[in-house]
Each structure stands twice: as C-alpha cells, then as structure tokens.
C-alpha cells in the first residue's frame, strides 16, 4: 500500500468515525425534535439556537454523574457490557462504501474503511456480536429484571437475525457478490434494489428495527414490566454509552439500508453531473467533487432513514412479546423464504426471457 493511499484511507476512516459519532450525537437531538414536532410541540430549544447544544449538555450531565457499580455486580463484566455495545456499534461502519473513489496524485482510493469482499457477512457478524453488549450488561448487573431485559433483547435479536439474513439472501442472489462496494456499483443508473426487492426491503427494514431495539420492538426496555430493562443498574456515562450505541446502530443500519436497497451513493443523473464536472474542472478535481456529491447523497439517504426510525417510533405502539415472536418466526421468515424462491425463479427464468425480448 502506497503512502498516499494509506493517508487517504486513514483520513476516510477518521472522518467516518467522527461523522458516525457526530450523527449519533445529533440523532439524540433530532429524536427529541422529531418527537416534539410530531406531538405539536417545539422540542428542545433552550440550549443554543434551536437547542443545538442540547447533546453537549446531555453528555456533560452524563459525565458528571456518579459512576456507580452495584456491590454484588460482576465488576469487570459490568464495565465490559457498555464498552462492547459501543465497540460493536462502531465496528460495523468500517465496510460501508461512503462514496465511489477519490483521486489524488494519480492514485484512486475507494471511500470505504475496509474493502472487504465479504463486507455484508462482516456486518452481520458484528451485528450479531452486538447482543453480547446487552446480554453481558444485563447479566453482570446481578438483577433479575436486568437479566430478563437482556434475555428479551438477546432472543429478539437472534430471532430477527434469521429473517434479516434470509431477506438479504435474495439480494445476494441478484448481485452474486458479498462485497458492499460491488452491490452499490451494480445499482448504478437507477437500478436500485428496492424496485426489484420491495418485499425483501420491508422484511429487512422490520428486522433492522428489531435489531436496533427500536419502537415498535423496544421490548428490552420497559419500565412497567422490567423497572427499566437491561440497563436498570447503569448510570452515568455507562448508561450513556448504551443509549449512544443505540443511536450509532440506528445510523449504521440506516446506512446499510440505503447501501443495499437505495443505491448507496448513486443518484439519478449522476453520469451527467460527472461528465459536466470532469469537463469543467479536469479529471482529478471534477472526479473528486462528483464523488463528494455522491457521498452527500448517501448521507442524505442514511439520514432520511434515521428520520424514518424516529417517525415510526412516535407513530406505532409497541408489540406484545408473543406478537413480536409470532411476527418474527411465523410471518417474516416464511415471507423471506417465499421471497427467495420468487427471486430465484425470476433470476432463472424471467431475466433471460426479458433480456431476449429486449435484444
């Protein structure tokens, strides 16, 4: 790896890391604003203009609270829980392609933390690890309610991962690649997967709600039934990390949804924009600016889904636990399997037929 490539990669990773944290931070502000607006209120507007300093105030409050560890808790695991939740949440953004390529000094570098040919498998592995943060935290608290919350979270995540993986297989059958970069590149030119996989998209979206423990599947947190949830015994910044990890997960899963189904950094008319820019500013600057526009579009899509998460949260009532399990096992998994069969049949029979008609 050459030095320029290394530097651009390092900068990309750093920028992605900081942006992920920043977006997660402002999601807390956005969540409260959206909640307010949907309920005909103003939302936070005292700290700074439009309440923009609210996340800083919240973080400051979290930091200055007493960092308390219960006497009978398993101390090491009690600290490991939120750390793991945070770690796994941040890891997943490494393989997401945030833009096409960046040209500098004759070197072309992909705007992606790690170019992995098994990117989507990596994401699934990391997401599956996310259960550990919650489970360890709930178990280490030495509190029956925390443990119940953690068990709920674990069983919910594991159940919905099955349907999520199955809904994804249909996409992999179409793209015949596990690399997120390839999947995005194949969606170039308005060829977005959402048009081919509407059912798969709905299943994936539902499952990602469940994976992020968001309403209507926020059963791990429940004051009436569990005195709080898996983080009952947590306070101070450890609790802050759990809540923060939830928002990071939300952003990362939004980014993955827009990568898999909404064409990532592709947007309609991007070839025209690219040609105009390269003609006007040369192949290096023009190319880089076109890439940055694509990255902006990608973030726009991801942020729309973050908004969508909040929108759903303040619209739908939560599921009961048996309804959650019924939906996961009896509805989504069969639907995902049907989707796989339909996709397979289409790829095998419909696609050659249509291409023969077109040619």
């Amino acid at each position, binding site marked *: 790896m050459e030095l320029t490539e290394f530097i651009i990669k390092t900068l990309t990773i750093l920028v992605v890391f900081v942006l992920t944290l920043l977006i997660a931070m402002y999601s807390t502000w956005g969540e409260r604003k*959206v909640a*307010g*607006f*949907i*309920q*005909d*209120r*103003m939302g936070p*507007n005292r700290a700074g203009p439009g309440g923009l300093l609210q996340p800083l105030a919240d973080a400051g409050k979290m930091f200055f609270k007493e960092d308390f560890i219960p006497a009978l808790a398993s101390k090491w695991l009690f600290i490991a829980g939120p750390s793991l939740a945070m770690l796994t949440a941040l890891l997943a953004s490494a393989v997401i392609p945030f833009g096409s390529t960046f040209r500098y000094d004759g070197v072309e570098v992909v705007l992606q933390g790690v170019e992995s040919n098994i990117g989507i498998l990596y994401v699934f592995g990391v997401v599956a690890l996310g259960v550990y943060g919650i489970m360890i935290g709930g178990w280490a608290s030495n509190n029956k309610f925390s443990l119940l919350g953690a068990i709920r979270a674990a069983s919910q995540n594991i159940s919905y991962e099955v349907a999520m993986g199955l809904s994804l297989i249909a996409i992999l059958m179409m793209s015949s690649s596990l690399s997120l970069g390839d999947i995005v590149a194949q969606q170039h030119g308005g060829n977005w997967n959402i048009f081919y996989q509407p059912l798969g998209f*709905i299943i994936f979206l539902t499952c990602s709600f469940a994976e992020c423990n968001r309403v209507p599947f926020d059963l791990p947190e429940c004051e009436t039934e569990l005195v709080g949830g898996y983080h009952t015994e947590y306070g101070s910044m450890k609790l802050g990390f759990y809540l923060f990890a939830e928002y990071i997960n939300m952003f990362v899963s939004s980014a993955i949804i827009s990568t898999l189904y909404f064409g990532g950094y592709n947007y309609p008319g991007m070839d025209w924009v690219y040609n105009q820019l390269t003609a006007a500013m040369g192949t290096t600057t023009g190319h880089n600016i076109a890439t940055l526009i694509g990255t902006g579009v990608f973030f726009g899509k991801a942020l729309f889904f973050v908004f969508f998460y909040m*929108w*759903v949260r*303040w*619209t*739908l009532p939560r599921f009961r636990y048996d309804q959650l399990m019924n939906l996961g096992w009896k509805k989504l998994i069969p639907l995902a399997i049907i989707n796989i069969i339909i996709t397979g049949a289409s790829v095998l029979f419909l696609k050659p037929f249509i291409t023969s008609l077109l040619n």
Partner: protein
Amino acid sequence: MQLTNRSKQVSNKEMTLMERAYLPAIATGMAITLKHFFKKKVTIEYPEVKRYLGPVFRGRHILKRDAEGRERCTACGLCAVACPAEAISMVAAEREKGEEGLYREEKYAAVYEVNMLRCIFCGLCEEACPKQAVYLRHDEFIPVFSDREQVIWGKDLLVEDMNNRYTREAWTKEEARTLDLRRANGEATNVVPRAIP
C-alpha cells in the same frame, strides 16, 4: 335506552387480508403523524412570548394614586385583615403640613409591605379596600425570585408610576367579551403586555 347515536356494534369478525397485512394501517398512521410534523405548533414560548390573560387576571399588586398623583391608601388595615395568607403589613403615619400633594388624606401608609411568598393572589385585599387603593394588575406578573431579599415588596415597587398609569378596561364578563371582540377586530386598546420591571 339509547343515549347517543355514536355507539358502535362490537364485532368479532375475522380481519380481512388488508387488515391482517398491517402495512396499510401503518401507512395511515404515519401519514397522520407526518401531518402533525408540519402543523403549526401550539406552544407559547413563555418568557419571550406572553399571552394576554384577560382583564380579570390577578397579577402583581399596585398601590394606586388618584388623578392628581396623591396616594389613595390611608393605612386603614382592612386589606391586611382580609388577607387569608397574612401577607400584608403596614405602618400608618400622619400627614404633615406641605405633604398634601403626596397623600390624599390625613393618614397614610409610611410602610406598606406585601410578602410575595405568602400572597396567594386571591384578590381579597382589592375587594376589602374602601379607598380603591389596592389592585392586582391584570397585565404583569410577580417576577421569579432568586433571593429572599426580593420576596418582600415595599412601597418602592408597589406605588403606581404616574408616567405609566395602570388602567383596567373591563370589569365584568360582558365587558371583557366586548373587549375581546374589539381586540379581535383589530381595534387598539391600551393593554400592551409589558416586560417585568
């Protein structure tokens, strides 16, 4: 016996496929919340925007002067007697020669204090006053205290300022209603919400 025609027959029918699919219902709900997202917010942002509370609101106390600028209060103590919270205290004094321009009658209140922590803003002092000297303003509040020193209000804060006299425009419900109508028609009235001193 049927009381209203809003009652609906309870039905135990099987849900149709559309109802079981759940997604149309979600879409309807999302449309409703999105509509609210863009609606005008009902919040009145209090310290910056103050709502007009009507002509009969009982706010901060004022010791009125008469048309020539003389204090009306004669320190009879009826307000203090009427006060259920015992918030009012006063010291009476006799008017000296040469003070006729300051006090309306021979006796006046040298000290008149209202304890704003005790006051419940019931307006009984206003009703008890035979000289029409004490009123609770309808357009100003007692500001928030941050210090015990600020709790007891003396004559310096209570006595009316002749350059900025306090008038109340409506006294009965009917008058208030006509006033509201006039205000709704855009006619000027002298009630302007003012900043706290």
